[in-house]
């Protein structure tokens, strides 16, 4: 087995702060390596360092050997496309928005491999046909879905014939079924060479196999074969990382006796504008019940929640509130992206005061609730732009719960957060909703999360609109 690339003692500093500390590994021919870590762990920096793409403000030391020869960072660009190539994090932004799809591949055959126009064209069309993109050959990247754009990016990155493919979060933002497609495609593309994948997703690491390197805050935590690391993790951090996945969560189900019906939905058809996204939906919500909605992106999950809240009109069918005396501000929503759901121009304290003043809330309740949500008092003096996503989402939950909601629609509330934080917030949200007797509708693209948390599950499929209780 030959090492395609060997990294020795890679260290990266920024203004005296260590971002990556003495990371060493090698990628062998035919044996993929996966670097596993959370946001801010420095894993993307490692990929950039290998490519020679680190911004000049960062100081890097250590050596990178390519095919057994050490190569300095600045002289690595001639290797791009021919020996090493890298898949971008955001495929949409990495494809030329004005260039027709097939040209993004054929230009590589022409410019890198020196083929003539016709041969390059045929080559590119062959590639697109294999990827199921032939129908989009003459379209532009903006007309592609996320998964299609990622496939096109893979085709154009590998057209130059590089042996080593580096993929930085290749499955970011994709549904689980699309994710599996991309992983298989990556494995195929790396045949004869090797694959270095960077991800935060344990499932991806598991499917890719080969070796795993776990890093945290720029430090190597654990390394070994995928099988041994995932089934028998040694480091505490690796264990926590694995058990933060929804399939390991412990959540108590609702006891059926204590519930009261608050909302009934009969034969509902939902959609935005005139196009129906799903139909024939039936449901009865109860106090303290956790209802999950799953389905691929674009199937109408969020539309369903918005329709129940009355933000969108139903296309057909009936939504009937069953509880008397509920006020409109007790039907609330928790958004996917915490920073965009709060005004960043004033402090969180001001936002809280606004709410207290408007609804004449009892200020005594705030402190205990903040304690339950693990929110420090000091956070209120800051504005939304200076607070982390996880804390902001907990603050959003605080504001919502202060209004004693009867129905709360949480639209992918943790999908932008790291697994540890996602787990903590979901558990808190469910516990507090149960305690207050609030019905909670959770939308997620992750079936495991929904299965684990919810008392009732609604599956929306694009083709067949069915509800399963």
């Amino acid at each position, binding site marked *: 087995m030959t090492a395609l690339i060997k990294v020795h003692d890679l260290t990266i500093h920024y203004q005296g702060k260590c971002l990556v500390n003495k990371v060493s590994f090698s990628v062998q021919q035919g044996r993929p390596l996966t670097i596993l870590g959370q946001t801010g762990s420095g894993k993307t920096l490692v990929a950039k360092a290998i490519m020679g793409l680190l911004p000049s403000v960062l100081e890097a030391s250590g050596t990178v050997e390519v095919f057994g020869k050490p190569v300095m960072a600045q002289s690595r660009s001639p290797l791009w496309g021919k020996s090493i190539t890298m898949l971008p994090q955001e495929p949409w932004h990495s494809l030329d928005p004005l260039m027709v799809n097939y040209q993004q591949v054929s230009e590589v055959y022409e410019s890198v491999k020196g083929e003539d126009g016709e041969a390059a064209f045929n080559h590119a069309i062959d590639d697109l046909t294999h990827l199921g993109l032939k129908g989009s050959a003459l379209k532009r990247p903006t007309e592609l879905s996320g998964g299609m754009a990622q496939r096109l990016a893979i085709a154009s990155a590998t057209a130059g014939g590089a042996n080593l493919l580096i993929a930085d979060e290749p499955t970011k933002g994709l549904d689980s079924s699309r994710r599996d497609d991309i992983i298989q495609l990556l494995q195929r593309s790396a045949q004869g060479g090797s694959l270095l994948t960077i991800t935060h997703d344990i499932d991806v690491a598991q499917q890719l196999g080969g070796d795993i390197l776990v890093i945290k805050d720029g430090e190597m935590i654990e390394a070994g074969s995928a099988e041994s690391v995932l089934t028998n993790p040694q480091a505490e951090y690796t264990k926590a990382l694995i058990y933060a996945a929804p399939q390991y969560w412990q959540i108590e189900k609702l006891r059926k006796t204590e519930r009261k019906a608050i909302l009934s939905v009969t034969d509902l058809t939902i959609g935005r504008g005139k196009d129906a996204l799903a139909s024939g939906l039936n449901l009865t919500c109860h106090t303290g019940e956790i209802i999950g909605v799953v389905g691929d992106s674009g199937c109408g999950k969020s539309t369903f929640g918005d329709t129940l809240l009355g933000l969108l009109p139903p296309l057909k069918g009936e939504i009937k509130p069953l509880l008397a005396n509920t*006020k409109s*501000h007790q039907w609330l929503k928790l958004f996917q992206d915490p920073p965009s759901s*709060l005004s960043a121009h004033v402090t969180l304290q001001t936002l809280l005061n606004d709410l207290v003043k408007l609804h004449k809330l009892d200020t005594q309740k705030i402190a205990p609730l903040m304690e339950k949500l693990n929110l420090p008092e000091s956070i209120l003096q800051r504005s939304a732009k200076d607070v982390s996503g996880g804390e902001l989402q907990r603050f959003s939950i605080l504001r919502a719960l202060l209004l004693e909601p009867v129905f709360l629609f949480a639209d992918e509330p943790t999908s932008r957060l790291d697994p540890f934080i996602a787990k903590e917030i979901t558990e808190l949200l469910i516990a507090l909703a149960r305690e207050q007797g609030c019905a909670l509708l959770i939308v997620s693209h992750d079936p495991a999360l929904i299965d684990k948390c919810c008392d009732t599950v609604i599956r929306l499929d694009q083709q067949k609109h069915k509800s399963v209780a």
Partner: protein
Amino acid sequence: MILQLKINQKVGVGLLLGLLLVASSIVQLSPYHIADQDLSGRLLAPSAEHWLGTDHFGRDMLTRIASAIQLSFVLSFFCVLTSATLGVSLGVITAWKGGRMALGMDVIVNILLALPGLVLVLLFAAIVPGSLLVLYLAITLTQWVEYFRVSRAITNTIINSPARQLSQMMGFGPWYQFRRHIWPELTHSILTLASFGGANAILTMASLGFVYVGIQPPLAELGLMSVELFPYYAQAPWILVQPLIAIATLVFGFHLLAGNKHDGAH
């Protein structure tokens, strides 16, 4: 509201305020009047008596320049104030209410954008020549559209933002939503537009004066002065240069205030 200005914006504010202060004090303290002619002392070079010299009628240049700068400030101030108020309020209301009003506003905006601003102002100036009021109305008419379009576009995105939707769901009224969500997002763009608007008002008035259809003599106006003094460029270049420098300084001040993001305006 705390405006966090960058360093060159602060320089712009300082420059403009300084200019305004100096110009007003000169107008107040000067022993001359802008129309005082002295045909025996024409085209004089700067001296202790006439700090910036005299023009072709022997009028004191310092007094005339100061008066012209003051006039420019007054006009641009009222143009900016009126067009910003009108444009922003109509923009926010149109974005929020939509419907028929949006259609009607589209037609009005299209009419105003069909002709270049200066041509429109020229036509108005032709109807009532030499009137400062008409000049102000015409410039305002061409300028409010920009505020309207920008504040409408920004408000449209805020209306659909999760933060505003959430405020509405939580029971906050329209005024709160405007104050917390829309206004803070608007201020930066409005300041930029207002700075360019101030500069453009001055430029438009000077352009009109320059083609003889703006403010009428003997009032001192920078464009009119440039064209009146132009025939003496060989004899007395120093007096021709004065109104040119004054215009450039005023516009420069406003551009500094706007910040260096000219292309951020669209």
